[in-house]
């Protein structure tokens, strides 16, 4: 017991230290910077101001926010539509094949997602692999313009975030008691009824968790729209990146980061409320 709790203390302690050094402290800098003035010489000048927040609530930034929300929402919906049937299928196949499929899904994560995004460019280019295949199969007469469109941005985001949707849904489908489905059939339910009245409500916690885990990163991921969408539409992530790296306006970038964090917190709060509701209404264990 002693060594076990010792291990626990060390692992929790080191995780806390990690989070403090690499998350909390940098974030405090961002928070402080968002109230400082811009200074061309030293990046920031330690003079308190509300100006950054006044600047940020310009129509331009609101459009950026709106675009980001729509993109993240669209990504979440598409990911959900792709992930749910797959997770369902995963929960129903023999254990051995399931393990292989789960492994295949996780292996790409050992590679940086930035590199995998570059790989997508190679696939989608005008003279890339996808177009080469379509042309040689005579399915199209000329190369499709996939890269630098909204489509390729969605494909990139969905591809990158899909596992974060699949895993929570898969785990809630695994917990689903098949006897409930039999009971519903016995009571006269068709497959459609069973899905809507039994399966969907009971896997809702997984759907909510997965949607949160896709929606929030989709709000902030800047390099995927950057690389796959070109400079078409500005998103919050790109906006922040530009303030720091291109324009050199760290205080404004910091203010935008704070706003993004607040939006995320809002959604996390909604997630917390809805998952608690789903749990109390659904997942109370049977005696």
């Amino acid at each position, binding site marked *: 017991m002693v060594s076990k709790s010792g291990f626990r203390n060390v692992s929790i302690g080191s995780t806390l230290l990690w989070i403090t050094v690499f998350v909390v402290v940098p974030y405090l800098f961002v928070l402080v910077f968002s109230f400082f003035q811009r200074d061309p010489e030293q990046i920031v000048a330690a003079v308190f101001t509300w100006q950054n927040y006044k600047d940020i609530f310009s129509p331009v930034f609101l459009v950026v926010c709106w675009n980001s929300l729509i993109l993240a929402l669209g990504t979440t919906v598409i990911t959900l539509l792709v992930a749910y049937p797959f997770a369902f299928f995963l929960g129903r196949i023999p254990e051995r094949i399931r393990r292989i499929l789960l492994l295949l899904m996780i292996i790409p994560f050992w590679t940086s997602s930035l590199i995998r995004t570059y790989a997508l460019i190679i696939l989608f280019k005008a003279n890339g692999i996808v177009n080469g295949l379509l042309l040689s199969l005579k399915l199209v007469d000329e190369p499709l313009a996939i890269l630098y469109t909204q489509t390729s941005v969605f494909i990139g985001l969905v591809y990158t975030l899909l596992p974060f949707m699949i895993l929570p849904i898969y785990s809630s489908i695994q917990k689903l008691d098949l006897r409930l489905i039999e009971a519903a059939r016995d009571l006269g339910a068709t497959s459609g009824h069973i899905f809507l009245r039994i399966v969907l409500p009971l896997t809702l916690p997984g759907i909510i968790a997965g949607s949160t885990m896709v929606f929030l990163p989709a709000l902030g991921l800047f390099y995927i729209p950057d690389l796959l969408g070109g400079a078409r539409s500005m998103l919050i992530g790109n906006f922040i990146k530009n303030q720091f790296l291109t324009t050199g306006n760290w205080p404004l970038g910091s203010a935008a980061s704070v706003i993004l964090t607040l939006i995320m917190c809002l959604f996390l709060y909604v997630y917390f409320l809805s998952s608690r509701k789903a749990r109390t209404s659904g997942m*109370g264990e049977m005696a």
Partner: protein
Amino acid sequence: MESLPIVRLQGVTKRFDDVCAVDSLDLDIYQGEFLTLLGPSGCGKTTVLRLIAGLETLSAGEISMNGSRLNGTPPNKRNVNTVFQSYALFPHMTVFENIAFGLRLKQSDKQAIRHQVSEALDLVKLSGLENRRPHQLSGGQQQRVAMARAIVNKPQVLLLDEPLSALDYRLRQEMEIELKRVHRQLGITFVFVTHDQEEAISMSDRIAVMNEGRVEQIGTPIKIYEEPENMFVARFVGEINVFDGHVVNVNNGSAVVDIHGQLFPVQNRKKAGTGDKVRVLLRPEDIQVTRDADKNGGPALSGKVDEVIYKGKTVDLVISLDAGETINVTQFFNEDQEDLVYGEGERVHVDWLYGWEVIL
């Protein structure tokens, strides 16, 4: 019961890979009866229910209901409902929503549904718990919800898979009575599964004793208990003492059997012939014990009392016979007859009244 069966199973067989769970089983179930499938764990009782409900597909044979074949009819199209062993209540729905589940699929009149649900709740004595969720109920209450959820659909046949097995002893006894009451009030056919012979005997109109996917014997509880047709039924349904012997004389409906040199007259239901080896079966409560061999004047087996177990209403004796067997005897305790109280080590003689035995 002379009418046509409501459900008829003919040559019903179900194989799972290498296991034959149900083996060419024939069974007729009649309108309004309380039929119990009784058998040890793994003998195929649940599988028979699931085949009737349509939750499993037949490997061979045929199930018909009201004279028409059911093969291939999906469960949601069968006029049959099940009370599952695990109850399988929907955890995300209230008691009301659970019970209304089947009704809402078939009708939309909210008022009528409300009325039927409250009737079903009354029947199982759960009124007032409509808004609870399953996990807020005790085991017994969950069991009642499972009942109400099935019977509210007014099925022709209600299938119950060991519905009482998860309940403690007191509650089980209470629920046995409740279940009989519900059966009487509804008048629908109950097919009840249990591995508990006492439960089966006290509740059923008829019992089908099952073993290894087959029906060993089917009949009223009295028939099953008093006249088992084979050793499996005899042994499974209550305790039994078995004496090996051979027939020395046959005369009309009776025979004389030699057991350890004593000549016992027995009823010859089996129609054994002279010289046949037979087994004479006796329930513990059918055996008489005396101190004095000559008191009844007839044949008797001698032995010694090994153990005396006082059980309140009865006294159980374990007696080892001089011929080697050990038998169990149950005597109804009577404080006025002190000569019935035997001590351990006491020498006794046992016999029984003609006709109380079964020969196999």
